[in-house]
Each structure stands twice: as C-alpha cells, then as structure tokens.
C-alpha cells in the first residue's frame, strides 16, 4: 500500500481527522469485500495525484466498530470526506477513478 495512505482505527480516528489541515477521505472497507479491493488502486492513484489537497485514510470496519457505527456505515465500500473534522460528503459503492475525482472535486 502507498505510504501516503494512513491506516486509522477507533483509537486514532478522532485525533487524526480533526487535526488534519487538508480534507481526509476515509475508506471504510473490509477484507471480504470484492468491490473494496477494486477501489484500493484507485485510491492510491488519487493519493499520489491529489497529494496536498486531500489525504486518504483507510478504516477496517471489521476491527473498528465504534467509528463505523457512529457514521452509520451500512454498505461497503463507503467513502466519507471529512473537512475540519466534520463529514461533508459520502460516497457509497465503488467507482472508477474519473467519476470519483469528479464527485470529490467540489470539496477539494
């Protein structure tokens, strides 16, 4: 995995997302989810190309139920964009890169 992508947990989530000066896109995922695997390379490319504009982070829902429940994630992959610690946009389901970048563009 790209070193630009941060792995979050229930313990580190709040501090990381609130402290970040750039928006953080959190990928709620799990090992058993086929579509989650497909968007991993897409997110890695975005992390490289949009570096400085957005941070990409991953949260394994299987191991981090608190944060998963708090944001009422009910389907994976779910991507939530946090700005100033607050959720601003939510994308449910996998997307191709072009579409994902377009959906995020107004927030970046």
């Amino acid at each position, binding site marked *: 995995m790209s070193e630009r992508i941060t792995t979050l947990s229930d313990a580190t989530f709040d501090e990381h997302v609130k402290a970040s000066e750039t928006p953080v896109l959190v990928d709620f995922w*799990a090992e*058993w*989810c*086929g*579509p*989650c*695997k*497909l*968007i991993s390379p*897409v997110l890695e490319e975005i992390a490289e190309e949009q570096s400085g504009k957005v941070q990409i982070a991953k949260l394994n*829902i*299987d191991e981090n139920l608190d944060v998963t429940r708090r944001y*009422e*994630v*009910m*389907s*994976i*992959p*779910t991507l939530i964009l946090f700005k100033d610690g607050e959720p601003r946009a939510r994308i*449910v*389901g*996998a*997307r*191709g890169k072009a*579409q994902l970048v377009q959906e995020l563009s107004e927030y970046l």
Partner: protein
Amino acid sequence: MPERRDVVILGSGPAGLTAAVYTARANLRPLVVEGEPSSTSDQPGGQLMLTMEVENYPGFVEGILGPELMQRFRDQAERFGAEYVTRKATRVDLSRRPFGVWTGDPEGDPDVEARALIVATGARSLMLGVPGEDRLLGHGVSTCATCDGFFFRDQPIVVVGGGDSALEEALFLTRFASEVTLVHRRKELRASKIMQDRAFANEKISFRWDSVVTEVLGDTKVSSVGLRNVVTGEEEAMDVTGMFVAIGHEPNTALFAGQLDRLENGYLRTYEGSRTNVHGVFACGDVQDHVYRQAVTAAGSGCMAAIDAERFLEALGDE
C-alpha cells in the same frame, strides 16, 4: 493513430479472462477492456466479485472466494502477456475492419482497433424498480450480500427472489441476521434441489410465497418494506432493516445495439460455437448464455471464443 491489436476482449469475468489466457498463450497479446469499479456486478471480475464462496468450480476442493478466483484468472492471463485497461468500452464500430473500440470519449477516432473482437460483457443483476429502492441503496438496500451482510447482525431482513442466487444470499445472510424472509412472487422456487434443501432446513429462513415488494420505506435507512400478495391482493408492511435483491439478470448488450444479432430475450445470438453475425466478432459467457450461466460454462465458452478468434486470424493472414 489508434493502437491496433490482433484481439481485443470486452469484459473480464470468467469468459473474458479465459479468452485472455488462451489468446495470450497463442501470442496474440490480447487487450482486455476490463470495466470500471462499481458495487454492482458490472465491474472488473464480473458477478463473482460479489460472491463469497464458490463451491462448484472444478479443482477447488474446499471452495474458493469469488474475488480470489477472479484474481487468479487475471494473473494467469497476465503471465502470458495479456494487458488490461481499467475502463468500460463506450462505443464499438463493427461495420469496418479492423473494428473500432472506444474506451473514453465516443466521438472522434477509436482508442484501439481490433482485428478480432471477443465480447464477454456479461450480465448485470436486475433491481426491483420500486419506490424507495434507489434512495435507500447503501442504507439498507444492498446489491452485495457478501459486502453488507455484516451490518445486519441480529436484525430482520428480506431477500427477494426464488433462484439459486437468492437462496445463496439468504443462506449467507443467516450468519448475521436474526431472521431472513425470502419473498418470492410464485409459490415454488426455481433454485436447484440442493439449495432448496439447505434453505428449507435453515431455521432462520422463512418464506413469503406469491408475494412482491411494492415499496421500501424509511427516513434515512430502511425501516420496513411494503408487501403485496399477488394472489389475494392483500397488502402489508413488514419491519426489516435490510433488503437484498436477487431476481435475475439481464445481458449487457446496449453497446452492440443495431450491430450484433440478439435473441428475443436480449441475449446475443451466436452461431456455430461463438461466432456472431459479424465476421471476426465472437461472443462468450453470460452475454450470450441464458441457459447455464455458470462460472465454468462461461470459462468454457471463453475458450471457444479464443480458439475461434485464433482460427479467424490465421485465415485472415496479413490482411
């Protein structure tokens, strides 16, 4: 000038990737237009990306996870020189040779030209099309039981459908849900005997026969579904937090409208093996198979298409 290839393959499920293994081993350096990520079956790897355990693919004694099986297909074709573009085809022109294939802007020159084209675009799952379904997608309405079953621990849910996929989903979801109600529009299932036996034996699964879902209700997430008995006309609401739909598939053929012959039910028509009505275009897998629709039959027909394409190219010579 667009890049020219001997073989372009549209689709990357078992059919497309088997065609890729065979044509790559024949040194034809196939380009696989594998599709784009999505949470429906219309994604690289195809329908198996949304399944858990595949128990009936020969050679895997203990079963194998769908996504893992597809990764192996992909790696195997890549090993022999297959190349991938992670995009969807947006247009094809089969009226000229080499055939034109567009993977971005459908105007202007094609992105790639193909001397032979293998169509393996598969089929996608149908949704119900009832009020509330779209709005609550991802908020209790799910297209992927294996992805989302986890979120319905100790909660009541419905599965809609009566075939093998509906029963597979229902059985899988009993690992999480408190109860699973299978809603089916007829009073008997069309699923295979072994799946029916497993479902009937499972205490968590109950059946609502002769019934259809009329709407999905809930503010920000699913709270109930409306049911109607199609025999008595009786309507009721059932409290559930999740709905999984497995009512069948339709072939992905829109790209070929007016160019390739279709059967009345919309599937591509093939003649003598994998040939279509256009010389040099071959079809395999679920886009042309409305009868068997198995991973192994798709793979088998992908092999047929590869061999047919190879022979076609041989006969073509340097043309």
